[in-house]
């Protein structure tokens, strides 16, 4: 594996909660522009890995490098500025706020928060607003044209499936280099999940080199969209390779697919 093509590199990453070892000396690389599937039974450390990478948990030991930045024990804000965006397993949208406001949270680091700009230069503010509204509407329309017309409705009034789409859009609108998707299709039918992922890939095609790490339980989906898979069990990486490789691996079958 060539160093120049590695976007995220984790070495010996360990996360302990008291006596529980949620991540155990994990080595993991994400290549530039790839779609990496993250598999493993419940409690195997997939979400913990996301939380450690995005700075919500401070890892107990190890190294994390993202492009040229050291992200070991970085704050969530530093991780975001470095170019990593994520969705949450249980949707974390601000329900009383509008769809547009929630998307603008994704843009936060690109917005001008100066007092002068926000309070006095309202003309310029409104020009920027118009631009961002168009952007938000276009992005939403990729996922669902109906949703684009609901830009100014509170997220609380929107269906769970559309909320998933909004959450993915919120992560995408921040222009990340790495996107972490934590079970984006939870609660969706197979067709809806397929559609969502297809939409994500379509947006990605227009963005250039966006790498995606996807936690997903639906095997068909993993097979269709991922370039490479990593399987976790008890906080360790037990297998790595193409979907075919991992599906044929006896360890994986025992741990995950329940065949032994």
């Amino acid at each position, binding site marked *: 594996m060539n160093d120049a093509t590695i976007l995220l590199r984790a070495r010996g990453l360990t996360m302990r909660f008291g006596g529980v070892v949620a991540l155990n000396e994990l080595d993991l690389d994400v290549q530039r522009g790839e779609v990496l599937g993250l598999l493993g039974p419940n409690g195997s450390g997939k979400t913990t890995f996301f939380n450690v990478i995005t700075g919500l948990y401070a890892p107990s030991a190890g190294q994390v490098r993202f492009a040229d930045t050291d992200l070991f024990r970085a704050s969530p804000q530093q991780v975001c500025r470095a170019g990593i965006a*994520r969705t949450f397993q249980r949707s974390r949208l601000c329900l009383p706020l509008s769809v547009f406001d929630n998307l603008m949270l994704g843009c936060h680091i690109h917005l001008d928060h100066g007092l002068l700009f926000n309070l006095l230069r309202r003309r310029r503010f409104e020009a920027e*607003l118009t631009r961002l509204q168009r952007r938000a509407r276009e992005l939403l329309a990729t996922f669902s044209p109906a949703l684009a017309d609901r830009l100014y409705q509170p997220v609380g009034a929107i269906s769970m499936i559309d909320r998933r789409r909004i959450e993915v859009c919120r992560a995408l609108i921040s222009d990340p280099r790495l996107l972490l998707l934590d079970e984006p299709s939870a609660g969706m039918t197979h067709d809806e999940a397929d559609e969502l992922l297809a939409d994500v890939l379509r947006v990605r095609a227009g963005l250039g080199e966006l790498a995606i790490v996807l936690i997903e339980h639906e095997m068909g989906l993993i097979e269709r969209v991922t370039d490479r898979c990593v399987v976790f069990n008890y906080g360790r990486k037990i297998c790595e390779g193409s979907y075919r490789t991992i599906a044929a691996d006896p360890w994986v079958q025992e741990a995950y697919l329940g065949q032994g």
Partner: protein
Amino acid sequence: MAAVPNDLLTVVPRGARPWLPGVLGLAVVAVLLGAFFYAESEWEVGVLLAIAAALGLAAPRVPLLASAETAWRARPRLFAWLALLAALGLIGLFREEHLALLMLATALFHIAACMGLNVQFGYCGVVNFAGAAFFGIGCYTAAMLAGHAALPTALIFVLGGACAALIGCVLLVPVLRTRGHYAALVTLAFGVLFRSFMEVNDTFGGPQGVKLPDMTLFGWALAMPPEWFGLDWSFYVNYALLGLALVAGLFVLLSRLERSWIGLALDVVRLDETAAATFGVQLTRWKIFAFVLGNFLMGVAGAMYAVMIAFVAPSSFTLGDSLILVSIVVLGGVGNQWGLLPAVVIVMLVPEKLQFIQEYRFLLYGLLVIAILLFKPDGLLPRRLRRYGTEEAA
């Protein structure tokens, strides 16, 4: 509250005069308020309150309120100007009434202070139960500077705010490190300490308080009855106008703040710290911003109030007074500046008019809070979804 009807704009039939219900609604409010100031006997006030309550209860059931609201939301600028004109009209109407103008000005300065609380609690979710203390810091700053330094009055107002903001910074570390009940306790303790400190400190007048000299703002003698248009005016008209200018200015400023990226950042900090941090929002920075700005506004309001009543004593800045400020914010609708207007009338002015209530004030607050929590948990005027101003037509 479930889905806020966001498509109110479609309710109004085309071809009708859509501003008419808005003007009507505003007129009803102005007439009620005027009658309220005129009313002298307690039964008159009682009748007015009954009318207002009946209107308030009936309004959601008749389409008038919805269309009035539509009109206000469709032409916010026009109606803000009309509201300002109505307020000026009321001041003109009561130009000789000391008491009515004093009440009006007091209400306005307290609205300004509550706007500060709204920035802290309503926008950013930072609780502050020491509102009266920060208001008091503004009062004392004005009293000390007016008595001992020859500074322009406008500067004194600003310094009142600056002192409140600066002394509030002492609280920053505990406020940032605690949440919910604990943060409430920290600010509560500060409020109690402030009063005790002022009572034992002779430099600041001790329990007897300090008097302020008459002040002049840019050549405008605030303590003298003005001679405008050859009419007789009470000198309190000056303060009512000062209060109105402050509140109107803050309305413009804070509504811009709310409808901006700053307002959005503050909201997100309140609603979901984890999501906010994940998208790069500096939680501490925005909490400090809201806390300092809120305290500054309370200090400015306090400094102006002190100049008006020309006397400052620790007994006006008790825990009870802080709770009154919080209850105005909660009753009006957390985060909605317009809600402060009806709330301040109910919490501050009604007890002033109904003297017999004074004894049972806290009992009534208790009942009011319970009633609000039961029937209107979002306050009288719940906060609306953010609209930035120039939305594309959906």
